[in-house]
């Protein structure tokens, strides 16, 4: 059962780029070995935290979108918890929401096409004899 999750985590602001690269690559490696796929890695950069976390006022936000099972998320969360520079993380399942959004988009598309549709029978009835 493959699901899509967003893992957002915050690392301490004084972490070096190389360490961050290393951390992200180990997480990616973990994902692929557990049978999941990494869809995207987004570094959202340094941001001011809304409240202090472990005495830090700033943090580097990283967003990881993965596809995989619940066991994979469980393992990733365990890793994040034991990784010292990670000060906070949040996992959100997004596939349900995405499915809902796609459905709404589809309905909207259908509706956008629908308004011309009632108009075309009237307009179509006139050219119809001409074409026939």
């Amino acid at each position, binding site marked *: 059962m493959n699901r899509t999750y967003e893992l957002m985590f915050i690392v301490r602001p004084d972490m070096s780029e190389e360490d961050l690269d290393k951390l992200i690559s180990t997480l990616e490696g973990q994902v692929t070995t557990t049978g999941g796929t990494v869809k995207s890695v987004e570094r959202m950069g340094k*941001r001011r*935290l*809304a*409240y202090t976390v472990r005495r830090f006022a700033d943090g580097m936000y990283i967003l990881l979108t993965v596809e995989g099972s619940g066991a994979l998320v469980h393992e990733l969360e365990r890793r994040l918890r034991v990784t010292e520079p990670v000060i*906070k*993380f949040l996992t959100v399942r997004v596939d349900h929401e995405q499915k809902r*959004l796609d459905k709404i988009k589809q309905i909207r598309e259908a509706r956008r096409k629908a308004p011309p549709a009632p108009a075309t029978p009237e307009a179509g009835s006139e050219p119809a004899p001409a074409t026939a």
Partner: protein
Amino acid sequence: MAEETNTAVATANGGAEPSRSETPRAEGPRGVRGPRPGGPGGREGGRKYFRRKKVCKFCVEKIESINYKDVRLLAQFVAESGKIVPRRLTGVCTPHQRRLSTAIKQARNIALLPFAGRA
């Protein structure tokens, strides 16, 4: 009698809330009917100005995704104290308020929004 209440309304509008008196809603029913043309919040006694009908921002602007990452959107529905603003003040419809509150809580968890107070 209706005239009196209407003038009172007009002065209340002009004095207390000049911005709201600009709305067509406030001028339309003047003198035609009583002080309450079926408006949403027409309580007897107390405030007597016409209140604009509140509409759900998400329905009107067709914003479907209420995401915890969209801090700028969520911050509009969080009070200065950090509280989620209730529906009766913002006019957000029930399904959207439900999503909104979930998103705000997720954003709080990841330190994008404060639990209490402005950071």
